Each structure stands twice: as structure tokens, then as C-alpha cells.
């Protein structure tokens, strides 16, 4: 029995997969090359092409994919084969799943059917994201352990310490937001940001900075890439991975970037909302398309705005990646425990005091 709900859910899942795995993972590989090239006064990838058509280097991602599919799938001698295979899966799946609770649009009524543009509207969406993203830590740690390589082991150790520490700090940075919005559901948090002055970033920009730093650290990208630190640990925890298993780590990193950007958009940047435009106002402005047409148009605009904000944050993450050098392992720990953690605690207290005193009106 195919119900409309089933079709709706399937469509949303396909959309999320297409957006993260199908669009952003390969395109971010291209962006990484091209944006770094722009920042470094280079031309960047422009060679892979079909019959001379290079499509500004976009085909490099395709060429990479073809190359990596045909690479030898190598497992080093003495490696724990089952775990060695399981690790990249454990890294990439949570990154994909976490996106399930991030709303990529609002709620619309199409031909009498209510559509909520989120795969899973959980009451505890925020907790779900944290719970799922901690699983990806295991993927990295197991990869480091199962490879039977000292460099991998060092990378895995660094990753475990770093990711656990920053999870704590990251969890605390959003507590203030939970207090502010009085909800753990990301859909509800986004719905409460309809008014621009209720966007998370307006009141909670310190939390945004802290959350963003923690998120980059969770994703192990420069400047927090000590677990893979190519000049120290060769490639860290994925030293012994090749072919598609390597791609999975690589894709996990990019998908996690998208998830981070999605979380930031949902928590701080108003999700699909356009500043100073209410949902009702938008539907009214689109009234010329008829009641259903207006809803469809509003939905498309909402998704477009969400993706636009996503791209802005991804570009920001790329710019950070190509500007900063790498921390030392102990400096990462110090930053996490001695700077970000106390600061986020201080922000929680400040927010609490402000809400109690009525200085910070809750939406």
C-alpha cells in the first residue's frame, strides 16, 4: 500500500541524498580545488575533460570517482579485516543520517496534504544530531586501530581525544539556544526564527562562533586536522585506506561539512526564512500562482534560500581551511577545554540571566 506519506518521505530522503551525496560531495571536491586556487592565485583543476569540454574543472570529481573505483582495495597485513572495512562505513553513515533532522524548508499545504520539509521531525532533533555524530568518532578510532599501522594509531588516538572533547564543548554551546527557543526540535527552532530579530545569530553570535569552531574541530579539518596532519602522521587514521574506502572517509568529511552548515543555518541563520519576510507574506506575494501554486513556489524559494545559506557557510569553511595553519595536538585540547568550554558555560549563564531579567525576550 503506497500512501502519500510514504511517497513524501521517500521524496525527501532522495532529495537529502541527492543534495549531500550527489551534489555537495562531488561539488565540494571541486570547490576545494577551485576556491583554494582563487585564494592562492592559481588556475586550479582544469584538465579533466570530455572531447575538450572541461566544464570549468567540474569533471575532475567524475574522473576522481572513476579512478578511485578502479583502485586496488588494499588491506594491510595484520590488519583487523572486518573492522578495517567497517570503519569507513561508520564514518560516512552518521554524517548522512544526521541530516535527517535538519529542516531544509518550512511547512506547506499542497492540495490539502501537509508537507513538512524535514526527513524526520523529531522532538529531540538536536540531541539526535549529537548522538549520531558521536558515532562517527568510532569510525575514525576503529580505522586508526584496525589498520595495524603506528601512524594510523596515533591519528586515531588524536581523533578520539579531540572529538570527544569538542563534543562536550559543542553540546554546551547550543544549550543557550535551547534555553532561548525552549525546544530541542530543529523544526520548531527554525519556525521560531521567522522574525529576523529572532534569528540565533542576532542574540547568540558568540554561541555561533563557538559552535562553528567546535563543528570544524569535530569534522577534523584545518586548523583542527591533527588526526590526519599529513606532514606529521602521513595521513593519520586513513593512512592505510585506498580506493572506495578512502573515498568514504573523504566523502564523510564533505558530507559532515554540509551537515555542519545545515545545523548552523537551522540554529543560527533562520533556516529557510528570508530576512523580514514572513511565511504568510511570502505566500501572499506569490498569490498570482493560485493557492497551490503559491505554496509550491514558496517551497521552492524556501529550499533555495536554505541551499544558498548552506553554500555561504560552506564557502566560509573552505576559506578557513585554506587560510589557517594547523594546531598542535595539545593546543587543540587546551583550546577546547580551557577556552571554548568555559566561554560556552559563561554564555549559558549570561543567557540565563538575560532571560530571567527579561533583557532577552524569547520568541
Amino acid at each position, binding site marked *: 500500500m503506497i500512501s502519500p506519506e510514504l511517497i513524501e518521505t521517500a521524496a525527501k530522503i532522495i532529495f537529502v541524498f541527492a543534495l549531500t551525496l550527489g551534489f555537495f560531495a562531488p561539488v565540494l571536491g571541486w570547490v576545494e580545488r577551485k576556491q*583554494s586556487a582563487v*585564494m*592562492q*592565485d*592559481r588556475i586550479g583543476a582544469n584538465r579533466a575533460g570530455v572531447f575538450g569540454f572541461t566544464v570549468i574543472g567540474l569533471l575532475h570529481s567524475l574522473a576522481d570517482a572513476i579512478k578511485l573505483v578502479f583502485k586496488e582495495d588494499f588491506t594491510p597485513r595484520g590488519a583487523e579485516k572486518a573492522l578495517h572495512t567497517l570503519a569507513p562505513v561508520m564514518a560516512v553513515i552518521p554524517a548522512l543520517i544526521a541530516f535527517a533532522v535538519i529542516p531544509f524548508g518550512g511547512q506547506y499545504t499542497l492540495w490539502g496534504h501537509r508537507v513538512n520539509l524535514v526527513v524526520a521531525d523529531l522532538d529531540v532533533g538536536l540531541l539526535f544530531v549529537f548522538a549520531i555524530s558521536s558515532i562517527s568518532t568510532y569510525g575514525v578510532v576503529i580505522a586508526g586501530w584496525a589498520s595495524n599501522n*603506528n*601512524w594510523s594509531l*596515533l591519528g586515531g588516538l*588524536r581523533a578520539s581525544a579531540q572529538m570527544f572533547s569538542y563534543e562536550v564543548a559543542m553540546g554546551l554551546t547550543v544549550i543557550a539556544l535551547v534555553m532561548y527557543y525552549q525546544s530541542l526540535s530543529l523544526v520548531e527552532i527554525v519556525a521560531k526564527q521567522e522574525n529576523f530579530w529572532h534569528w540565533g545569530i542576532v542574540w547568540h553570535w558568540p554561541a555561533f562562533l563557538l559552535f562553528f569552531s567546535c563543528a570544524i574541530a569535530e569534522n577534523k579539518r*584545518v*586548523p583542527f*586536522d*591533527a588526526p590526519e*596532519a*599529513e*606532514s*606529521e602522521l*602521513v595521513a593519520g587514521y586513513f593512512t592505510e585506506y585506498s580506493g572506495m574506502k578512502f573515498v568514504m572517509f573523504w566523502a564523510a568529511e564533505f558530507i559532515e561539512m554540509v551537515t555542519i552548515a545545515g545545523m548552523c543555518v537551522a540554529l543560527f541563520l533562520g533556516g529557510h526564512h528570508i530576512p523580514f519576510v514572513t511565511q504568510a507574506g511570502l505566500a501572499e506575494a506569490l498569490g498570482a500562482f493560485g493557492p497551490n501554486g503559491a505554496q509550491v513556489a514558496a517551497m521552492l524559494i524556501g529550499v533555495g534560500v536554505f541551499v544558498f545559506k548552506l553554500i555561504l557557510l560552506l564557502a566560509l569553511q573552505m576559506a578557513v581551511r*585554506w*587560510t*589557517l*595553519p*594547523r*594546531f*598542535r*595536538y*595539545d*593546543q587543540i585540547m587546551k583550546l577546547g577545554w580551557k577556552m571554548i568550554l568555559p566561554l560556552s558555560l559563561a554564555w549559558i549563564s549570561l543567557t540565563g540571566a538575560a532571560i530571567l531579567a527579561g533583557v532577552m525576550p524569547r520568541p
Partner: protein
Amino acid sequence: MSELIRPGYDFHKETHTEPMVINMGPSHPATHGTVRFFLTLDGEIIEQIEVEIGYLHRAFEKECENQFWNGVFPYTDRLDYTAAALNNVGYALAAEKLIGITVPERCQYLRVIAGELARLSGHYTNLGAAALELGALTAFIYFVEARELVWDLIESLCGARLTHNYVRIGGVTADLPEGFAEHAREVFRRNRELWDDFAKLLLKNRIFLDRMRATGGISRQDAIEWGFTGPCLRACGVPYDVRRAQPYLVYGQLDFDIPVGETGDNLDRFLVRLEEINQSIRILEQCLERIPPGPINVDNPEWRQPSKDDIHRDMESMIFHFKNTFEGQKIPAGEVYQAIEGANGELGFYLVSSGAGKPLKCRVRPPCFALTSAMPLMVKGAFLADLIPTFDMINLIGGECDR
């Protein structure tokens, strides 16, 4: 868990831990395939380190004994290949000291120009690579551009970009090309911009400063005792520069400063090199202003490579061209040591001649050999990650250290 907290429990006694022995290199991104570190790690702390060099040994010194005196120049290029012309200059000066000739003033200026351009190239490479290995790829690319521009200049001077092979005993191979001074000024203007960008990008960056400051330090006394020279010694506050201490060529007449550091850590080494880039450009600008007209070779066909015109016109030139080509220059018997300031420090050539057309012995004092030997002193007890900037600032060039 209750096991762990029972009274009298001694973690270190009852838990079996041992340090991790790990092999870093030669095929490791940080060691460039030219050196191997044998590390004993306690977690991330380096307990013990053994440095093994020799992976780029090409028997340079033995090879020189089978070449005519002038045929050694291409081999010297491959010592410190990031600053090739400096090696040319050092070898030529040593050979000329053995013969007892002095090259004309214009030639001396040309050698200073080639040498300082090579020093620029060496420093750009070193500082850029240091940034790269700390993860700042963008800064590296900025200095690659600067180096490319310097290489354009060198190319217009001698035709080669990396291995210059520019200097000969008794002279140089080519005079300045037309418009060199203008071209050079343009390059220096752009390179100063790139220098500013590079310095801003890194020296205002807390992460970079934290990685460099107070790592890989060495005391002034230790540095002297371990035979440090060059930027690493000057970073400890010792203003020893061969260009000042034992002036050669026209360095005595040129106006330049010798930057010194205070603490001798990696940041000071970095800053000293960064400032030396400015001083090299200063030297180059003075040279381009003051370079006098005149011959670029000694006026003696026995010791210079005569031109084809001379060979066809002049009896003596033809004789020496034939003899030098087939028997090599007969440099009088004796031995000599001549040091110059290489990009990495005191680059010394110790030459012994038996009066034959080939060197009896050509020994090189590579500056980075002494620096590398002090690696254990500098990184023991530090983090594994500190090995990277320290090794970068030592600037071990395989070609120079292993020869």
C-alpha cells in the same frame, strides 16, 4: 573500575606500557625522502630520536676527483639546489684562492648578484615550505610566486632556473642581459608585496606563532658548540655572518644589516630568514646601481674559458682552450679552505690540488650537517608535532648534507 581504585594500586607498576618505536622516513611527507628519524615516543612526546642521513648521497666529493676543475660546477649546483649559484660562487672562490687570482670588479658584482638571487630563492623555498608543513598551503604558494619571479631573473642571466651553472673559474659565463636592472626592480617591487602578504598571513596568526614560538630552541652556547652557522646561529643572537666576518667579493663595500634573534627558537629562525630576504634585496639593489663596466673574466686565457672569437684570433687563447679542454686547468699544488655565506650558513670548500687538471680532493662543509646533528638536542622531550617546524627551520637539503 574497582580494581583501579583499590588501596595500594600502582598504575605504573601494574599496567604494562612501553614506548612506541616508530620509523619516520625516508618515505615520509616531512622528510622529503632524504632523511630518516628513528623515534621512540611516549604518547606524543619524543623520548629518543636517532637521525639517519645519507639517502641522497651521490658521491659528490669522489665525483669531483674525476672531473676537470671547471667540470665540477654542474655538480656544485646540486649541493643546495634551492640556492645553486651560491655553491658555484663558493667553489670558484676556493679555486681562485688556490691559483692566486682575483676576478675583475664587474665579475665580482655579477657573482654577488647571482649569489643573492640564489639566496632569495633558497629562503623563499625554506620559509614557504615551513608554512606548508604547518598546514598553511596558501602562504607557501605566495612565496612560490616570489621564487618564480626570482627564477625568471636568474633565467635571463644564465639560461637555467634551478641548476644555474653560472660561475666559472676566473669569471662567469654571461654578462647581465639588457634591461636586467629594470626587470629586477619590477620583480623586487612585486616580491615586497608578496613578502608583506606572507608576513601578515603568518605573523599575525596566533596558531602559527604558537606552533613556532618556544619550539626547537637551542641556547647560544650549545649552538656555537654544535657548529651552528647561518640563520640558525643568528637566531640565537650571535651576529656571525661570513659576508661580514671574512668579507669576500665586494660584500665589504655593500651596506646591509645582519638580523639576529634572541631566543634561538623556531620563530626567531623564521624571522631572521624573513628579514634576510629584505637585506638580500637591498644588496641586489645596491649592486645593480654600482656595478661598473668592464670585463667579466680575468684577462688570462690560462684561467678563463676563452671566447670563440679569442680562440680564432689569439694564439695563446687557442693553446689554452685546447689544453684546458683536454687536460684541465693546471691549478698549482696546494690546499685551501674558502668559506662563503650560503643560504643555510657557512658553506666551506676545502680543495687540494696536486698540480694536475683535476682536484685531488674537494671537500664541502655543508652548513646543515652541523644543524642536523643537533636535532636530538632540539626535539628531545618535545611533541612529535614540534619535530616538523624544527626540521623545517634546520632546512636540511639532502643534496647539501649527504653530498
